[in-house]
Structure formats: structure tokens, C-alpha cells
């Protein structure tokens, strides 16, 4: 499966994603943000980092990059798009996902391992997890405080589009376990069509034992084996 990883000036998790996709058996390729076309690929990933130095707002300027038109077309045609951290912020800024990411409640950058509960295992991103499975992976962001109005939040929940929630080891979405103040402890969401996903935690940093967790591996595995099941979307 061929994956385009978009590099913006200031992206810094592009290389990590590249290695991760390789490890899981995919064929990654970098796309520079100035390019107009994605090429013949099966999935697109927007990496973490500080595109354009977070000037204006995290992810805001990146949405003006030429490549983003191609990403939008790809998404509209049902192609899977995954945005991690800064990539999630871009997807919200670009209107491909609902809501916004505000500054962390603590007003400090938050770099730590978090625990996530898998809320829906029917998406192309989470189908290899077990319902309510608890995952461990790092976060590293200053603006990860997910916000949307109540109506939107209710709709996301009702449509099973909240994919991950921050919880404690027992799977409780307590206030203490919420590292950034996200509404309803939301860590990752899906678009209405089910092909665009954004999350603040870094699954690509949890794909080898030596990194402290392998819990991100199944997300990439699910996505990369998705093409054979593409008809399901």
C-alpha cells in the first residue's frame, strides 16, 4: 500500500511516520507541500510538527499550501487520510474534521505517555483493536485541547465518530487522566464519511518495544490492509 506523507516547512514527525509505515509493511513516499498532486497513492498522512512555526494558529497556514487542495480532493473521493498532532490541527483548520484544538488547559506543553480507550472498532483505522481496549502512547503538544460546541460533540458521539478518549488504567475518562482539558476527553475523531481521522497522541511513536509501547502498530496495520477491504467504505 502506497502512502503519501506530506512534509510542510516545520514538520518534524514526517520521518518518524515514514519509518513507521515501512515497519508495518507499507510503501511511504514524501510529498513536499508545494506540490500540486499526491500521485498514485492509497492513503495520505499529515505528520506532526510545527508547520510554519505555528504562526497565526497551529496548522492554519499549512491549509493554504498547494498540496492541501489535492488532499481535500483525495478525501472527498473517499481516500483514507490520517492526521496526527499538527496533522489533526490542520485537518480541523481545513474543515475536513469538526472542532478545533485549543491551548492545553495547563497552558504548558505536555509531553508524556497517555492511556487511550478505543471507543469504536468499526472504523478503517481502529478495526484491529478490541472494543474498549486501553492503549498507551505519547503525546507531545501545546494545543491539544479538543473543542467543539455541544451539538457537534453530541453528533460525534451519536455517530460513533469519537475513536479515542483519554482514560486512566481502569478505562475511566477521569479529569486527572485528561492531559490537556479536551472536551469529553476526546483524543481522536473521525469524519462523517469515515475516511478521515485526526488524533493528538502519536501512534507512530508506539510501534516498537524499545520505544515503550507497541500499541500504535495495529492502527497502521488496519489502515494499510484496508485497501483490500476498500469496498466497505
Amino acid at each position, binding site marked *: 500500500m502506497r502512502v503519501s506523507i506530506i512534509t510542510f516547512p*516545520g514538520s518534524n514527525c514526517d520521518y518518524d511516520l515514514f519509518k513507521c509505515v515501512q515497519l508495518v509493511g507499507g510503501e511511504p513516499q514524501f510529498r513536499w507541500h508545494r506540490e500540486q498532486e499526491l500521485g498514485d497513492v492509497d492513503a495520505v498522512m499529515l505528520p506532526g510538527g*510545527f508547520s510554519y512555526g505555528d504562526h497565526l494558529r497551529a496548522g492554519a497556514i499549512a491549509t493554504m499550501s498547494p498540496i492541501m487542495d489535492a488532499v481535500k480532493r483525495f478525501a472527498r473521493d473517499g481516500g483514507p487520510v490520517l492526521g496526527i498532532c499538527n496533522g489533526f490541527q490542520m485537518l480541523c483548520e481545513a474543515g475536513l474534521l469538526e472542532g478545533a484544538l485549543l491551548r492545553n488547559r495547563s497552558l504548558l506543553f505536555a509531553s508524556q505517555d497517555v492511556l487511550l480507550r478505543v471507543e469504536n472498532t468499526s472504523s478503517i483505522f481502529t478495526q484491529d483493536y478490541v472494543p474498549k481496549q486501553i492503549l498507551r502512547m505519547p503525546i507531545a503538544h501545546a494545543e491539544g485541547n479538543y473543542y467543539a460546541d455541544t451539538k457537534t460533540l453530541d453528533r460525534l458521539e451519536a455517530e460513533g465518530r469519537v475513536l479515542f478518549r483519554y482514560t486512566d488504567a481502569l478505562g475511566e475518562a477521569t479529569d486527572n487522566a485528561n492531559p490537556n482539558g479536551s472536551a469529553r476527553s476526546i483524543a481522536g475523531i473521525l469524519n462523517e464519511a469515515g475516511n478521515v481521522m485526526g488524533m493528538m497522541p502519536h501512534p507512530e511513536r508506539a510501534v516498537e518495544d524499545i520505544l515503550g509501547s507497541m500499541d500504535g502498530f495495529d492502527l497502521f496495520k488496519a489502515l494499510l490492509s484496508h485497501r483490500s477491504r476498500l469496498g466497505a467504505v
Partner: protein
Amino acid sequence: MTARPEDTGTKTISNATPREGDPPITTKLVEEHGLSAAEYARILDILGREPTFTELGVFSAMWSEHCGYKNSKRLLRLLPTTAPWVIQGPGENAGVIDIGGGLALAFKIESHNHPSAVEPYQGAATGVGGILRDVFTMGARPIAVLDSLHFGDLNSGRVRYLFAGVVKGIGDYGNCVGIPNIGGEVFFHRGYEGNPVVNAMCLGLMKVENLIKGEAEGVGNFLMAVGARTGRDGIHGATFASEELSDDSHASRPQVQVGDPFTEKLLLEASLELIKGGHITGIQDMGAAGITSSAAEMAGRSGNGVEIDMNLVPVREPGMTPYEILLSESQERMLVVAKSGSEKSVRDILTKWELEAEEIGRVTDDGLFRVLEGDRVVAEIPSLPLTEGCPTYEREGIESEEIRELRSMDLTRFSEEVPDHSEVFMKLMASPNIASKRWVYRQYDTTVRTNTAIRPGGDAGVVRLRGTRRAVAATTDCNGRHVYLNPRVGAMGAVAEAARNLVCVGALPTAITNNLNFGNPLKSHIYYQFREAVLGMSEACKLFETPVTGGNVSFYNETDGVAILPTPVIGMVGVVEDVDHLTSHAFQNAGDVILLLGNNTDELGGSEYIQVLEGLVAGEPPSVDLLAERRLQHAVLAMIQQNLLHSAHDVSDGGLACALAESALGQEESPLGVEVTLHDDLPTTPLLFGEAHGRIITSCDPGSVDEVLRRAKRHGVPCRSIGTVVPGKYNFRIAGKDTILEVDMGTLSQLFFDTIPNLMDGASSS
């Protein structure tokens, strides 16, 4: 570019002329430029005439303490700097060592104390930026950063402001560029109140063949200014760093540069691409003293000359004088020597990364540092005397009477008193020096680049080398209290502790970079501290075979005439042969046996115990037996490589009791209890809280205990079982001959993890 009218071949006489509006060169002006009468006389001698105002500025920067090392150079020669694995020793942008498999590690530490004291956020951020550039200009991709931070008492609002700002500055910069922070140290003592120590260290990885130096090679090659434009910020930063701080220093805020990590990231990628493509022969950060030092040093190292035209340098605002352009310390700028004919390739790469690049001059064969303003020569100085001719001094060092008295203080009463040890222990665990620094490193991205195998919070940070079985480990260490009381022993102790830390994670200590932070070297008691510390460091580095490959000297760390605790920070790197050997400081399993390697002593001098209970820095700091240290380190590393040990942790601040607690709390959310009995015939207080060197606490499977004891014996290292790891629902308990220290793990965990967050709650930063 205008050719020089006459190439004399001799490398002295020149005829730079003053510009209109230049102030006349007076004794007062020379003094204001931080140059002594003797130094000025030497300048006259070198030039054979009076310098222009521009030239005076150039000399002032190049002969500042920061660039010229005039009060440290002679003593620094005493440090060991060579070993078969050292590829590049001191004198380049960073040191480089061979780590096998065709790979080399570039690393360096640097201070940003003065800027951070005045403007903590930008001061610290630009410190990180500078050290990253030092490493990637060697051709290495930065793979990790660490920091060594020393601040005043956290109960002071000003200190909390500085601390919060510095941590945010380091975090924001490193996070944005995408370099994981893997460790370091934070130390508090009121001696750092007005003048914090902010040292940043960077490690970079490269293929040996990609090594490139900061040399102006190839006559006719072009000099290009790359990256940010030159502005009026940071003018005379190098000179500012070479003065004591006073109330007036805050008027120096404009001398603090402003960092832009986004441009840095682009510069990093572009530089590595330029080097890899073979388009350039030399590259250097425009760091302290900006264009002046980068151009002069590159010329000096190659023995060539350089000619640069101020009219060609991209500037941020019109009307900047050559003096200002030459001495600006605007950040994120590099000087690149492009191969003649490669200008277009260089420009194409830089354009791709959306960076500016302008040809500003070229390499010449006349050995002169020549500055033009269009047709006019505004400065012309022989390069070598400019970079190497700075007068160096060796001064008289005399120990301060006051410190001698503190050191000689009789500590018997502390040793003999028997307080409630549980209560004292809790006080120590809640001392910011012992308490977890999680509040700090949670603001640093520690896992980006997906190679971090041991994150901050342990004895040393570790990044694996992708595609190999190996990893590199790094740590920074310096206990300023110990150095204050006895600089020679304290500096030896810093090296020993750094090496112990590396061994505990499974690495062989390989080399160091040092950051020597001291007061005003013109004062004899400060010079004494400096000399003694260098001697102690030298002795320890020789014995541990950890040569010094570079570093930084930061003098004049004083506020209103009072110096900081002398702080020679050791940044040590080591190599882990197989990632399977990686060992944590955290106890792993209930039921494991706890063993102590090394000897307990009755030493209590310079300890956190005396600091916390009496607010005193007194007594003889713990002695260092280098041979015993080396035996201990060999023994522990051998056992780790045999996979005998489940954990290993060095005993330092807060002594045995605190080291045991750190191992018990090592798995943060799932702590384990400890049941230890000590039979030593020693007074209980130093036994529990003394900071004797040469000790490591380890844990292993009960079935491996005999083998551990046998191996320790073979290495000639004292070793004994002192207790057991128990489930976290049980207490932390140490029984001594006349006392029992007992605290429940919940309380301990709270004291350890919540102290600094609680102190910092509500502290704001810029």
C-alpha cells in the same frame, strides 16, 4: 566584489580608513570595549597603526573572554583531549568521536547564562538554537538535547519567573525543531539567584565521511550568508557575556537575541543537504560575535584570508553600519563557503527550503580578515593574530578564607544527632533538588524521532541508533555545593557521577564536553576555584579515559559582585553495545533482591541534608577514590552486559535513602515498596543521607544474587544484599541499628512528584 588594490604578500600593514561619523579612538572608548591597555598595545602592534572604530569592535568581540578564552586557555591545555576514538577535539564547532560501524557522534555543550538572567525565555531558547547549529554545522543530524540548569531558591518569585521562562524557552525551541530532550539536571541553591546557569547540550549523528569543518578552504570560493537577515539585535553579546551582571544589565535586554526555531529547522535541513551534496567546503554558525567570529575563525583555521563586503550582507533595516553588521548576533544565520561553481546548486537548495542566501565575499590567499563597504576598506586585520593572538593569562589563585572556614566546619553534631529520620526523609524528598523534575521534562518533547529508549528521569538518557544494535547515552552532572567547598574534589566527583550514571543505563563512558561556569576570573579566589576544578576534572578524565572534546567557559557569573557556586558541568556521552543491555533506575519486580555496590561512609559534608535542615553548605565534600570508582563501573557494566541486573541507580544527592526512593518510584504510576536493613556500624544520619561517591544500588532476581556477589568480588568491589523490593501497597522501610525510617508509598509519591508543580502553580512565563 572589488579586488584589493595591492596584494603585499606581507600579512600586516594595511590601510583601513575610518568612516565618516566614527567616534575617535580614545582610552575611554577602548576601555568600554573591554580591552586592557596592554591588549590595546598589542592591537597597535599587530596593525602597525591605530585601529578604526570598526576594527576596535572586531577586536573587542574576538578578544572577549567568550571568544578568546583569555583567562582559561592555559589551564584548559591540562585537560586530556585525545584518544583513538576522538576524531575532532577542542577548537571546532563541536567535538566528534568515532562510535563504530562508520558512524560518528558530534556533541557539545554551551552556556546561555547571561541572556537567560535578563530575558529567560529568549535567552534559553537561543541557547538551544546555538548548540543545535554547532552540531549540524559539523555535518551531523541532531539526535538529542540535554540541559543543565542551576537556579536560585524556588521560593523566590523572581527565580520562579526565570525557571518557568527558561524551561519554556528550551522546550519551545527544541520541540519545534523536533529534537528529543533526553535528560539533564536541575539544581537549586540561592547562590544562583540573580545569575542562573543555563547550559544546553546537543548530540548529533553522522557518517564519518560527512564530517565537515568550519574552515574557509579554497581560495576564490564564495562566502555566503545563509538564513535570517542581520539585524541590530545582540550587538556585542559576546562582550556582554564577559561582564558581571548588575542592575544595569536589565538595560541590556536588547543585547539578547530573539530565536526562531522554524527558520532553524529549515536551516538544519538545508545545511545537511548542502553538506551531503558536497557543494560546500566549510560552514559555521554566526554565533557569538556573529559574522566577525565566524569569518575570522574560518579564515584562521584554514590559514587563508577572507574578504567580505558589508553592502552585500542582507540586513533587516537600512542604515546599519559595518560595525553593527559585523557584531550583530541575530540568530539563525550561517556562514557557508561554497565551492566555486556551486553557487547555483547552493542557491537552489536554499530556495527549496525558503531560505535567503547572498554571496557576501570570498576566500583569499593573503591571510587577512578584510571588510569592505563597497570600495572602501573599513577593516583589515591579519586573521591569525585576530583569532589566536588574544593575550592569555595565568593568574594567582588563592582560596577564599570564608570557604575554607565553611569546609573546616566540624559536622560531628549533625552526624550524632538522631532526629526523626522518617520526618527528615520526607523533607528531603520534598526538596526541589531531590524531587522529580517531571514538571520540567513534561514540557520537552522526549520521544520525537522515535529513537528514545530511555527518557528523562533516569540516570542518563538513551537514543538507539536505528539499523544497529547499539545506542548512545548521555548525561549532564555537577553538584555546585561540592565544588564550592572543594573545587578539585567536587569536579572529580562530577566526572565520577556522570560516568556512574552512564554505566547504570548500560553504557561505556566514552568522552565529555564541559561547561565551566564560574565568577569573575580576575578575582583570585575565583581563579583558584577554576584552576582547582580543571585539575580535578583532568585527573578524573584521564583515569576514566573520557577525553574532553570541547566545551565552553562561562566566566563573570556574578550578581552585584557575588559569584555563583562554581559549576563545572560535565556533559558525558557513552556507547551502549547492545540495546538488550539497557537498564533502568527503576525497580522492576516485587521480590527482587536489592544490592548495594560500594561502601557507605560517615561523610556528610556538602550534603542536601545539611542544606535542607540548616541552610548550610559546609564540611569537606565526599571524597573521590578514582580507582575504586573505575572498578565499580567496570563491575556494574559487566553485570549489565551479562543481563544479571534488573535495575541500577547511582547514589548521589540525598544519599542512600533518597536513591532507594527514586528506584522505588521509578515506574511513576506503579511504585514498588522497599524493605531494607542496614547493619553498617556508622552514625545513622550520614548512613542514610550522606552523599559518599562510588555507590550504585541495583536489584536482581533472587536466583542471581550469588552470581552478582561473586562477580563483584572478582572486580574487587564491595557488594552486599541489603533488602527486598516489595509490592507498592507496602511501605518504604529502612531499618538501621537505632532507627526505623518508614513512609507509605502514596505519601512518598506525592512528595516526590508534586513538590515542583505545586511550587510552580500559577507561576507565569513570557
